[in-house]
């Protein structure tokens, strides 16, 4: 199977006042064409940084990157910023985590939506505006004409997320990164947005990277799942395989801890006992060891390598579940 996106040995470090912060560590991942791949992990595990780095969107002078990214035959990591930019819109696009902050607060929806169409697809202003309205209708926004003239703060969270989806799919991308598209929304709206994404993916034949902290979201919406922990991919398998035969203690803990969301404040509660290791000072052993029920001495001393089952199931654990001890 050909892969649309292939990330090899990607590491991302941020220089911070407290030292170098390893946000992503040696990640390898393939996104097969036409498939949907879920990326699951707790807050701070590096999901957003990984996606943005894969697209070449990490800004700032404090970022150190290594590794290679190949998208649709183009080696992004060897291209200039301008060349990569030409792939945005019709090649790759991204839905951002928080629809409140990801839309420009002082520009009308219509101009934010039509801008990409005019610049990337060379449409005339009138065509771009007409197409924008269609796109808003496509993402099921009622009275699209009025929304075109609105500012983001005048819309509800769900509407804003729909607008963001419309912007992302405007130029018909081959690969859509959806960075926690539903985390900021309440449960009923979450289901609608996921439904919409499923349909759009079908209609537009998009591949998708679906980032979430919720294994439940992964179940019905992805073909493959990568589980991230402390900047690493710790388990990777076809979605059905993962749920049937989980190898990684962390994934199991994630599944057992039904994600609890505090709806009043919108913040997530700690669902697994303990916290992520300090990202500026990772220990020598398995990153999950301090929180792992199965941890043994070896776990604290040696960093587990990624192991591959004959069926392609990957995991990073000395004592995987289901293995005779």
């Amino acid at each position, binding site marked *: 199977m050909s892969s649309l996106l292939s990330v090899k040995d990607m590491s991302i470090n941020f220089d911070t006042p407290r030292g170098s912060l390893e946000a992503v560590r040696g990640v390898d991942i393939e996104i097969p064409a036409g498939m949907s791949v879920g990326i699951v992990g707790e807050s701070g595990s590096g999901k957003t940084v990984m996606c943005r780095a894969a697209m070449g969107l990490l800004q700032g002078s404090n970022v150190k990157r290594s590794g290679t990214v190949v998208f649709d035959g183009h080696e992004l990591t060897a291209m200039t910023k301008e060349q990569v930019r030409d792939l945005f819109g019709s090649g790759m*696009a991204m839905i951002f985590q928080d629809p409140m902050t990801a839309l420009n607060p002082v520009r009308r929806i219509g101009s934010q939506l039509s801008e990409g169409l005019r610049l990337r697809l060379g449409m005339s202003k009138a065509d771009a505006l007409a197409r924008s309205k269609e796109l808003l209708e496509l993402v099921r926004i009622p009275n699209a004409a009025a929304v075109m003239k609105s500012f983001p703060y005048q819309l509800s969270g769900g509407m804003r997320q729909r607008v963001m989806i419309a912007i992302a799919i405007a130029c018909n991308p081959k690969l859509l990164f959806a960075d926690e598209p539903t985390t900021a929304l309440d449960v009923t709206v979450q289901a609608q947005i996921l439904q919409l994404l499923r349909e759009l993916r079908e209609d537009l034949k998009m591949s998708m990277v679906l980032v979430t902290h919720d294994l439940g979201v992964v179940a019905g919406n992805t073909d493959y799942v990568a589980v991230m922990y402390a900047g690493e991919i710790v388990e990777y398998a076809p979605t059905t395989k993962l749920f049937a035969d989980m190898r990684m203690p962390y994934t199991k803990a994630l599944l057992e801890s039904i994600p609890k969301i505090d709806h009043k404040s919108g913040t997530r509660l700690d669902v697994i006992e303990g916290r992520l290791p300090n990202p500026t000072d990772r220990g020598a052993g398995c990153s999950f060891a301090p929180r792992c029920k199965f941890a043994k001495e070896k776990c604290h001393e040696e960093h587990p390598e990624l192991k591959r089952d004959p069926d392609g199931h990957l995991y990073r654990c000395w004592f995987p579940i289901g293995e005779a001890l």
Partner: protein
Amino acid sequence: MLRISFWLQRLGQLLVVLLLVTFGVSLLLRLIPVDLATILLPVASEEERVILRTELGFDKGPIGYYLQWLGNFVQGDFGKIYFSGGTENVSDHLKAAMPRSLLLMVYTQILALSIAIPLGVLSAYRAGRRADKIISNSLFALSSIPNFAIALLLIIFIGVKLAWLPTLGYAPLADGVWEHFKYMIMPVISLSVGLITTYTRLLRADMIAALREDYVTMAASKGLSDRRILWRHVLRPSSVTLMTSAALSMGGLIGGAIVIESIFATYGVGFEVFAAIAGRQYVAMQSTVAVIALFYVFFNLVVDISSGFIDPRTRDRRVNA
């Protein structure tokens, strides 16, 4: 409906400010422990002074005096300037001085903003890099030179040594555009330097903050060029502080360019204040200060209105508040 009541409220507030400022100045005048009539008419007879006292309301209490002045002021009678040969109307002086000050202010703002905006955008974009450091350091060096020193340097080099521009005086636009600008260039540069520094710093700080926002990454992910992102997506939401500061310094330039107006003999409103104080023309001073306060209040309103255009959220916050 709500919007109208917001503006009425805002106008009311500004009116109160105006009244307080003018009353304060008026009260200060009356606190001077000398006979104002003697100061205004140093070589007049006692009868003439008595007439002047009743005419100006010096014989009334502070409130009575203020009300009389206010009544005249709102009718356009700003009082008189007294000197040995007779009197001149303050309003005639202001009529001559106001266009000079207004033009000086407008040119200064245009020059300062058209330099500060690109500098601010560039130094925010290159924050921490060489271009940013060069800009910050040069501006820091420039801002440590007071504007009168810049004025004097310009006069010495451009005015005297090179003799490119006249060093003193003013020519109205009616005398020809170039003639007019010959007199304005040096005062405008002197006044702009400090503003350029302030504006650049304000814009740089706000833009650096805005550049960290998700909507900037979002714009980049649409495949827009950095240039377009900076100018179309980041500049406007980052310019509220800059515009506020610019509008407020307009008021300051109208009445506060005293030193520069004196050095270049531009004789605008600032100079009128200076002349009124130096010549102990208290009534003239009171009215001129009131006019300047009016301009401050006016530019305050301009800030309110324009920030609604720059950031639509402020408009609705007003309605909801």
